[in-house]
C-alpha cells in the first residue's frame, strides 16, 4: 500500500514564481519528513528535514511545512530559477526509525 504520495508527476512554472510541491502520507504521522533533489543521471541530494513538532523550516529560498492534521508536507521554492529544474523527492520512515520510504517524485521545470 502507498505510504507516501507526491500527487504531481510534473510541474511547470515560470521563472520568478513560487513553486509549491505536495507530499501526502498515509497511516500515522512520521517523526520527520525529508526532501531531496535529484538531477538527471545523479543520486538524490538531501535538502531539508522537518520534524513532526515543527510547522515550518526554511533554508534560503526553500521552505517546507508539515501539517499532521492534513497528513501533508508542502515544499516551496520562492523566486524560482531555471537552475531549480530537477526532480524533488519526499521521504519518511515507514515506522519508528526504519529506513526511508520515498515518494515517486515531482519533476519541476522552471521556464525562463
Amino acid at each position, binding site marked *: 500500500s502507498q505510504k507516501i504520495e507526491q500527487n504531481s508527476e510534473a510541474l511547470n512554472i515560470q521563472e520568478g514564481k513560487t513553486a509549491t510541491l505536495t507530499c501526502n502520507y498515509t497511516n500515522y504521522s512520521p517523526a520527520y519528513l*525529508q526532501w531531496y533533489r535529484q538531477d538527471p543521471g545523479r*543520486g*538524490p541530494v538531501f535538502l531539508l528535514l522537518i520534524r513532526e513538532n515543527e510547522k515550518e523550516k526554511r533554508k534560503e529560498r526553500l521552505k517546507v511545512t508539515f501539517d499532521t492534521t492534513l497528513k501533508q508536507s508542502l515544499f516551496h521554492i520562492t523566486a524560482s530559477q531555471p537552475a531549480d529544474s530537477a526532480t524533488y*523527492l519526499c521521504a519518511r520512515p515507514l515506522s519508528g526509525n526504519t*529506513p526511508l520510504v520515498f515518494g*515517486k517524485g515531482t519533476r519541476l521545470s522552471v521556464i525562463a
Partner: protein
Amino acid sequence: DVKVTQSSRYLVKRTGEKVFLECVQDMDHENMFWYRQDPGLGLRLIYFSYDVKMKEKGDIPEGYSVSREKKERFSLILESASTNQTSMYLCASSFWQGLGGYSPLHFGNGTRLTVT
C-alpha cells in the same frame, strides 16, 4: 563532504550472469542502503545494513543478496541476473542519531544496469 562512490556508472550484463555492484563510503557511517529506481515506481529499498556483517531485507529483496565485510563497503549481488533487474541502482549511507533517527541519506550517483 561525505562521498559515496559506486564502482560503475553503466553496466551491461547477460541474463543468468552473477553481477556485483560495489559501493564505498568515506565517512565511517554505520548504515548503508541499496535502492533501485525505476520510472513510475520511484525508489525502492532492496537491502540495508546497520553494521559490519549485518543485513536486513528491504521491500524487494528477491533475486538479490548483499555483503558487508568492512564498514565502508556494501556490495549488492544479483545471483542470476534477469531482464527485470534492468534498473538504476543507488547506494546510500547514513549514521544513527539516536532519538533523531537516521541522519539524512548520502547517495552515490548510481549504477545503470542493463540485463540483456
